């Protein structure tokens, strides 16, 4: 039976009408918050914020003022952009043989006197032991690589791929490596996963990659960045909140949430998002100041690699760009990253073209998924092994009457 649009529409209409009433109030607060951000002085800010500890929200540390916008610099004559994106088929209970597939799509774009492009994808199939993370030294403590864990694996594969892609470009050409999403493995914070997982994806995963990249950066001009479109982050809003806050930490912890505060004046930025603020603060093409994240994962487990971020107005939206510290502290690299990302967004009409092409390479659509299952069945049949599928799958395949 198809979706009952009548019933859904009624509910949608209620939501939207509620939005309207709160909209005006919100707009006023936004413009006020923006004004304050513009007016903050670096020293004041740093002073107040560095004293702050132990709040029930995550705030970012600004490297200078909150509200400053920086215009982009000129593009170099020759440059290259590489991107990697992934897609996966999760372990499917309905398959005759449990397995998963990660497909990494890559895109190399070279600009200048010898424009060039290279698009590709690399599928990798996992089965049997490949479906589990086993603790070193044991045979039974294991975690299944599926669901969000498979997602982590994919992210690591994507970033790892960037290393390879960079090596394809002649070292004299400034290169930007892009990936969609975040350099911070947010999901690994908290106690959700055993150490095993953290070890696999941080110690054996992203950290070595970040080390390598830092090494490579010593010998050539490269930048690495993660691009988040339509970011829902409130790290800068919360920094503002902290700046405005008169209440002590204990009170705050008791009453406030990540989203809002009941006290004045720090209730000003309630429910506001970073991107909304920067939409006012940044002119098209401008980037914000650099911030570094206070995420516990980074603080505790990134082994010294600090992840910075900034916002950029690419003309269509406000995007969040995350960069490693060796990029963030290098003025040239920051400018390069800014200019190149803008160019990519322009060419991609609002989203970096290299990432979208890498995504196109990676994507596994519905018919591909079906083909994957069919191929599996054929392979089994050829080997004389039984194939079977769940009745649920069979009923999904043929919607018979």
């Amino acid at each position, binding site marked *: 039976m198809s979706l009952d649009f009548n019933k859904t529409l009624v509910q949608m209409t209620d939501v939207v009408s509620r939005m309207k009433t709160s909209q005006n109030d919100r707009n006023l607060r936004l413009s006020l918050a923006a004004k304050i951000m513009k007016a903050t002085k670096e020293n004041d800010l740093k002073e107040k914020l560095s004293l702050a500890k132990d709040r029930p929200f995550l705030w970012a540390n600004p490297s200078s003022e909150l509200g400053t916008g920086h215009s982009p610099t000129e593009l170099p004559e020759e440059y290259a952009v590489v991107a990697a994106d992934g897609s996966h088929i999760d372990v499917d209970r309905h398959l005759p043989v449990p397995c998963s597939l990660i497909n990494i799509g890559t*895109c190399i*774009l*070279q*600009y200048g006197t010898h*424009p*060039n*492009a*290279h*698009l590709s994808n690399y599928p990798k199939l996992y089965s049997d032991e490949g479906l589990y993370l086993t603790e070193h030294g044991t045979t039974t403590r294991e975690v299944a690589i599926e669901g969000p864990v498979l997602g982590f694996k994919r992210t690591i594969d994507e970033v790892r791929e960037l290393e390879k892609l960079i090596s394809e470009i002649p070292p004299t050409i400034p290169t930007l490596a892009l990936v969609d999403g975040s350099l911070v493995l947010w999901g690994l914070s908290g106690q959700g996963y055993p150490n095993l997982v953290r070890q696999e994806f941080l110690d054996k995963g992203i950290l070595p990659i970040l080390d390598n990249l830092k090494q490579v950066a010593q010998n050539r001009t490269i930048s690495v960045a993660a691009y988040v479109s339509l970011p829902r982050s409130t790290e800068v809003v919360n920094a503002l909140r902290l700046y405005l806050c008169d209440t002590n930490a204990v009170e705050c912890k008791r009453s406030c949430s990540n989203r809002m505060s009941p006290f004045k004046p720090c209730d000003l930025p309630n429910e506001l998002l970073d991107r909304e603020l920067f939409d006012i603060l940044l002119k098209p093409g401008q980037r914000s100041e650099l911030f570094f994240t206070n995420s516990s994962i980074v603080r505790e487990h990134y082994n010294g690699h600090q992840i910075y971020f900034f916002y950029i107005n690419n003309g269509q939206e406000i995007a969040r760009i995350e960069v490693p510290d060796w990029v963030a502290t290098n003025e040239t690299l920051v400018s390069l990253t800014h200019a190149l990302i803008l160019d990519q967004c322009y*060419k991609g*009409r609002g989203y970096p*073209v290299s990432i979208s*092409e890498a995504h*196109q390479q990676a994507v596994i659509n519905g018919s591909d998924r079906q083909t994957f299952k069919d191929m599996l069945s054929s392979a089994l049949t050829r080997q004389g092994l039984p194939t079977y599928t769940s009745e649920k799958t069979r009923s999904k395949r043929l919607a018979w009457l």
Partner: protein
Amino acid sequence: MSERIGEIIEANTNSFIVQCYKLYESPPLGSIIQSGTPTIFGVISEITTEPLDPSRPIIAIGHDEPTEDEIYRSNPQLNNLLCTRLTSLTIGYSDGDNVYHGFPPHPPRIHSFVYLSGNHNIESLAKSFDFLHLLLTSGAGDEVISACLRQISQRVQDGYTFLVESGQALATELVGQFPRLNAILRRLS
């Protein structure tokens, strides 16, 4: 043997579709190409440039570029995402020794390499005008026919005589359709 221009991606008894290796690099309309073993000859009746992935539409992106070339320079991925395809109407085949006009007993295989036919084969094909009848009844369009004849005339020994003889053959085929004949002859002159 001339350079490979592409591969067959679709084939049936009376036509085949070639994807060219290089974007925009295809022989002109009306050229005679050959492919497969046994060799099959065809006339290029349509050249299309389109996205490799049919689900991805092409949109105009060069509003701020000063020239068309700049668009390609600024978007090098276009060369990877677009392709040039040819449709070719089959006009003959060879068994190694002789060249015959008409449809072959079997179509060529997918992924057969495609080459531009050399002067020797074109001379053999041009010895008789049976292929004209095939082209006229294939729904190719008169532009294809005149392009093909012009192409052949540039490759055979006495091009002018060939054109005159092909005009005479057309006159016989197009009895009662003088305006159509006249239009084709204008293209040839």
